[in-house]
């Protein structure tokens, strides 16, 4: 009876109540999307590289090296020489290494030179490895393996031929040495999806006629001649390293960091990521803080609307009283109203959230490589909702007490 009354009363004030609900849901959605984005970004980052003990590159900040070598974002790091890499490989503590060479691109997608071991050693999301979906890994010098995202977005198939551009801008192409798609990888949800993978030798081959970042004019070594050449790389961007025993990681890390012949940096991927997260965490907390304030503001707004409606509703309340409602029933009615509003807002905000996430997900994935997981709400969200409902009840207490006061004073006659 009370429920029905309260509901019909709300229905009678559809527009004001509707606007309140809209305001609250938008602020709730803001809060939830910040939260969703931060957890998604965190898991998607931490899931991207596992079982690699160290990443070795030129002297740089650990975050820069991690972002560039694994996520291919941020500023490029220097390269390290092949000699230093071989020194590293020969260290007793080292179990395996995978060299990586970055710098060129194809239609905005990074081209990465590596060896076949990359496909067995690179692990993501615990212990999953990249696997081939169609075709085969590179056999020929000019074979290229595409990440699932590249193949999908460019519509490439096995056998499509493509040209690698020098650097990230497509001003100068390596058009004298076209590649052929030999394999397409399964989707991984990692930056590998957006990477064009070739062999290290191929990276060396396409730069045969290049010197200090530009094509040597008039020089064009025939492909047959290039195939005959020694295509051992002169330098690489980074190396993924696995050690035999975790207990020797720090010893090896120190050896690399203090390597006298070349300034190098060795980072523990998880440790560097955590370091990045401590920086990002400040901004995250700021965003969360802002959305909490927004929620609080809308709650105060809800109270304000209830207050202002009270004087309009003094007649309504007089009728309730006349029908036998006690002053406490009036309080109850107003609190019920607040609960209704908050539950409706929560429901609406969840719907809104999923719409927005579904719309934005491909864009975020494409631009930032972060796969926002659109799954059902977490227990944590339920806590937030519970706190929100309690907060709205508390806030509604003020107008409710005022209504109680009115109803005692006014009784059935209204002195306006």
């Amino acid at each position, binding site marked *: 009876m009370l429920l029905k009354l309260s509901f019909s009363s709300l229905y009678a004030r559809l527009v004001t109540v509707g606007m309140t609900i809209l305001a609250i849901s938008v602020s709730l959605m803001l809060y939830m999307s910040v939260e969703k984005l931060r957890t998604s970004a965190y898991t998607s980052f931490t899931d991207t590289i*596992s*079982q690699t*003990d160290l990443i070795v590159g030129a*002297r740089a900040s650990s975050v820069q090296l991690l972002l560039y070598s694994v996520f291919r974002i941020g500023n490029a790091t220097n390269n390290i020489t092949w000699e230093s890499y071989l020194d590293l490989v020969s260290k007793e503590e080292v179990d395996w290494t995978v060299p990586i060479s970055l710098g060129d691109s194809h239609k905005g997608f990074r081209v990465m030179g590596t060896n076949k071991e990359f496909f067995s050693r690179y692990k993501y999301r615990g212990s999953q490895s990249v696997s081939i979906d169609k075709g085969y890994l590179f056999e020929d010098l000019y074979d290229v393996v595409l990440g699932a995202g590249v193949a999908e977005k460019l519509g490439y198939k096995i056998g499509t031929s493509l040209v690698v551009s020098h650097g990230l801008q497509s001003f100068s192409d390596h058009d004298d040495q076209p590649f052929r798609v030999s394999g397409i990888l399964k989707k991984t949800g990692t930056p590998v999806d957006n990477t064009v993978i070739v062999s290290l030798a191929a990276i060396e081959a396409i730069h045969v006629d290049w010197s200090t970042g530009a094509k040597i004019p008039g020089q064009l070594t025939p492909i047959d001649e290039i195939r005959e050449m020694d295509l051992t790389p002169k330098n690489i961007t980074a190396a993924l390293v696995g050690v035999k*025993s*975790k*207990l020797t*990681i*720090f*010893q090896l890390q*120190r*050896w690399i960091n*203090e390597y*006298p*012949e*070349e*300034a190098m940096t060795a980072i*523990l*991927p*998880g*440790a*560097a*990521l*955590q*370091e990045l997260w*401590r920086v990002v965490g400040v901004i995250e907390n700021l965003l969360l803080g802002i959305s909490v304030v927004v929620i609080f503001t809308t709650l105060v707004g809800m109270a304000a609307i209830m207050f202002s409606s009270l004087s309009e509703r003094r007649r309504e309340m007089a009728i309730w009283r006349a029908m036998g409602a006690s002053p406490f029933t009036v309080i109850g009615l107003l609190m019920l109203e607040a609960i209704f509003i908050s539950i409706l807002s929560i429901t609406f905000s969840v719907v809104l959230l999923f719409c927005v996430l579904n719309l934005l997900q491909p864009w975020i994935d494409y631009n930032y490589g972060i796969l926002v997981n659109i799954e059902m709400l977490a227990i944590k969200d339920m806590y937030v909702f519970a706190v929100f409902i309690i907060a709205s009840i508390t806030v509604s207490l003020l107008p409710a007490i005022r209504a109680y006061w009115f109803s005692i004073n006014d009784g059935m006659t209204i002195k306006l």
Partner: protein
Amino acid sequence: MKKNIYYSLLISAMVSVSAAEETRQVDKHEHGVGELNIAIEGNAIDFEFFIPGADIVGFEYEAKTESDIALVNAALEKFENFDNIFSLPESSNCNLVNSEIGINQDDDHDEHDDHDDHDDHDDHDEHDDHDEHDDHDDHDDHDEHDEHDDHDEHDEEAHNEFVAHYSFNCGNIKEIDRISFPYFTTFPNSGELEVQFVSEIGSTSFEVEGDEPFIDLKGKI
């Protein structure tokens, strides 16, 4: 004395020649920031501390006066007992297997090469007598180490660093859910600890400071 100056000139000349031949690089050194590496594999857990001298004894030149030497020795003595530095949960049942405590007088990069085998930390520079630290009884007579005074060949601007390495074997390593650091109260001058942590699950890092002197390792081992 004069002879010593000639020697040091000669040595510095030699150092600069050798430095010109290879890449010039200098280690990072930040007062108030100690480094700690923790590695776990199987039942073993290893701790490596690298703490700037300023954080421990308040100075980083080589201890020469009796009072300085006493300070350094008192600090090393505190490192000897790991309970002064960190504590592991009782239930993990960890036993100290090996520990090495010493000082790096950080003025010659070549020395770093033998950091790998920690055995020779004992004979780093003049700190030969650190071996004795194992039997705590004779620490009282450390003050009389007058012979420390004549080690002039060391660069005065060198930074020293306390190095401590502890290896444990644990009955129940998964029980380690938190490591606390009495280190911050033992050495009131200390700033933060930058912790790198690695286990079979993966690696992570922490920044620990005196107001929250612990790290939470739930789900990380």
